[in-house]
């Protein structure tokens, strides 16, 4: 199953995503289809604030999780995933800024990468949860680079939403189901 989860900063989207991933993982175990539960962290531990944010997230997660840190090449990791694995990507916004600003990805290249993740999930029959952030509802930014980033992120969101079975917006920790319902 492909799941897309988004919301504002500190809206509880990570917590909700982790709970959803954990319940898919436990459900698989009950049915004796043992998979692994992976957390793919796209953020780099480059500054103090990020280290603190990462620690908070790590403390929240239980021992069931295997954490993989990867800022760019998620295809490499996803291509090794097996049936019934549950993979949580946290988050798309940071991945996109990594590849756009450090690897000079065009929107087309980013879209190809994301489409590749989605195909791998479908073909490999593992659960893929993608967490992102809504950054497009403020005043329109005059800065060209920021505007291009927001546009690209929105395009990726729509690509993922189209191919997701479950689409959730999280506000104040409360999920709104835009597509599918559990």
């Amino acid at each position, binding site marked *: 199953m492909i799941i897309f989860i988004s919301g504002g900063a500190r809206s509880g989207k990570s917590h909700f995503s982790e709970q959803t991933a954990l319940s898919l993982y436990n459900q698989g175990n009950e049915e004796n289809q043992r998979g692994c539960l992976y957390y793919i962290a796209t953020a780099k531990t480059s500054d103090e604030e990020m280290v603190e944010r990462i620690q908070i997230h790590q403390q929240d997660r239980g021992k069931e999780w295997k954490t993989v840190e990867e800022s760019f090449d998620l295809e490499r990791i996803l291509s090794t995933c097996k049936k019934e694995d549950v993979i949580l990507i946290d988050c798309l916004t940071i991945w996109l800024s990594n590849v756009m600003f450090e690897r000079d990805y065009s929107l087309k290249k980013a879209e190809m990468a994301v489409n590749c993740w989605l195909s791998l999930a479908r073909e490999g029959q593992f659960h893929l949860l993608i967490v992102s952030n*809504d950054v*497009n*509802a*403020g*005043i*329109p930014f005059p800065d060209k680079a920021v505007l291009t980033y*927001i546009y690209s992120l929105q395009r990726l*969101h729509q690509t993922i939403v*189209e191919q997701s079975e479950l689409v959730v917006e999280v506000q104040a920790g409360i999920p709104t189901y835009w597509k599918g319902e559990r």
Partner: protein
Amino acid sequence: MQLVIGGAFSGKRKIVKDTIGTCSWVSAYQEDRIADWETRWLHGTTLVIEGWEKWIADELTTSESNDDIRSLYKALFQTLFEEEQRRKNKIVLIMLEMGKGIVPLQKKDRRLRDIAGWIAQDAAQLSDQVDYVWNGLARRLK
């Protein structure tokens, strides 16, 4: 009258194109003026108007009064509403949600954001259908 509102690049235009038949577009992004609606609206089509924040931004440079600008648009919505009843063809207003970021540093940006919010409320009040667009999906609010 229908209001379609959502954040930047959220897929508002696509939703309108996918759900509504033949449209006459008046778009600030194509350098149209709001006053063009009367001549642009072809017989038997749905009138779609978009780019409000650009027209509002232009008003800000000529008028000091937020209330005056708001009244101007409120009167326009009323005219559109009546014309819609008369012609028996629909009007769709596409508006940009821009009130969910941090408070802008520049005064003109704060004004723009405030007025756009009020104008959206006025449009919603006159509309019998209001849809919120999020990542290519739409949810009916009214």
